[in-house]
């Protein structure tokens, strides 16, 4: 699964947190069969919740690429590519890292 955060490839210690792109911290979790770098457990929780919600909403079994844009101040867009399908959502989390807003904003292409 390729991960792009605000225009940069992310998900490893050198490249940055798979959710926010930060290189602070040193937290790893295996998600979708991949060992991913996060700056903290909070970002990891948000990332997992976001992926699970996208899979649940669209009935996806695998994800090939995700592109995340935005931050705490704007909320985030999530573009998910699975095979030849592409979905884009607007996402916001609550204080516990759970999904608060998850709206599809563009139809699959």
């Amino acid at each position, binding site marked *: 699964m390729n991960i792009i955060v605000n225009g940069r490839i992310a998900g490893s210690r050198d490249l940055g947190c798979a959710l926010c792109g*930060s290189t*602070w911290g040193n937290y790893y979790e295996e998600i979708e069969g991949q060992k991913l770098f996060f700056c903290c457990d909070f970002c990891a929780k948000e990332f997992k919740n976001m992926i699970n919600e996208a899979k649940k909403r669209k009935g996806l079994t695998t994800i090939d690429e995700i592109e995340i844009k*935005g931050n705490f*101040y704007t909320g985030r867009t999530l573009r998910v590519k699975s095979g030849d399908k592409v979905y884009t959502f607007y996402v916001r989390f609550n204080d516990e890292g759970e999904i608060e807003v998850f*709206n599809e904003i*563009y139809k699959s292409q």
Partner: protein
Amino acid sequence: MPLCPICEIKYDDWVSVANHIHELAKKNESSHIMWLNRNLETRETSVRNLADKLETFFDLKGKGLANWIREKFIQKFYSDKPHPLILAMQKPNRAVLLGYVLEHQHFLRNWVRVLSLIIAKTDKDDVARYELENIAVEFLGWRDKPSHYELLIRMGESLGMKRDEIFSTKPLPSTLSAINTWKRIGETKTWVETMASMHSLELVADRSLRTYGAKMHYFNPSILESEEYPQAVKDFLREGYEADEYHAEEALELVEKYSEELNLVEQVQVTVIKSFDAFSKYLLARLERAILIDSSVAKFLGGVVNEYYS
């Protein structure tokens, strides 16, 4: 004296603060990492560099605390990437305005209660007088004018929502979280910190921010003359447009004077930044409410985010 902007432990110098934050970041401590990401730097840097950045961030540059607060507010909400709510307010639709009404009623009800904590804690009469007048303007009405709270509810009615329906709508979790932040500040912090945390937020509608570098005003002033909006919408927006310049300016002068007198400048700085984060969350909650009324607002928000990070 420098202090950690997150846990507020005091240190002798900025290198010690940086060292403390660096150590916690290495242990993945999320609140410290989030503060760095939101305010300073998303790329890991050395203790020395971090100390320099922290010192620069909190440096008043000889221009005083009120100016520092104004600058930070502009950076957070009115920079090259204005807060999405500010963009939505340039041409707000019914859903955005109803989102304003439904969430802001809770903001205002909490507002006057937190201001009352300032009055309860301060021994300064100029501060008590300022806050009492603000409470009257916001909640009771002042000199034959209806209160901002009443004008807000009338705006909601003019958009087709019944008064009872407005009052019975509970705040969204993000609004509640922000309100609890300000309540906690009022209950646990000094009155100067509380005063700074609350009245700095009135800068959002301060017209003079444009002269300090803000990219736009809180809303497009042409709305005040537009035929597209009900009179009650224009009446509500006009009140804020005309009042908040005076409100924020006078309050920040009091904050600057007393934070120096009581040696609380650094405390005020870190608390104000916490208040700004709560405010950002609250402004997004208003758009979140708008999404519940009209899902096309989510497309607008997504479009803003995509444009900012393209």
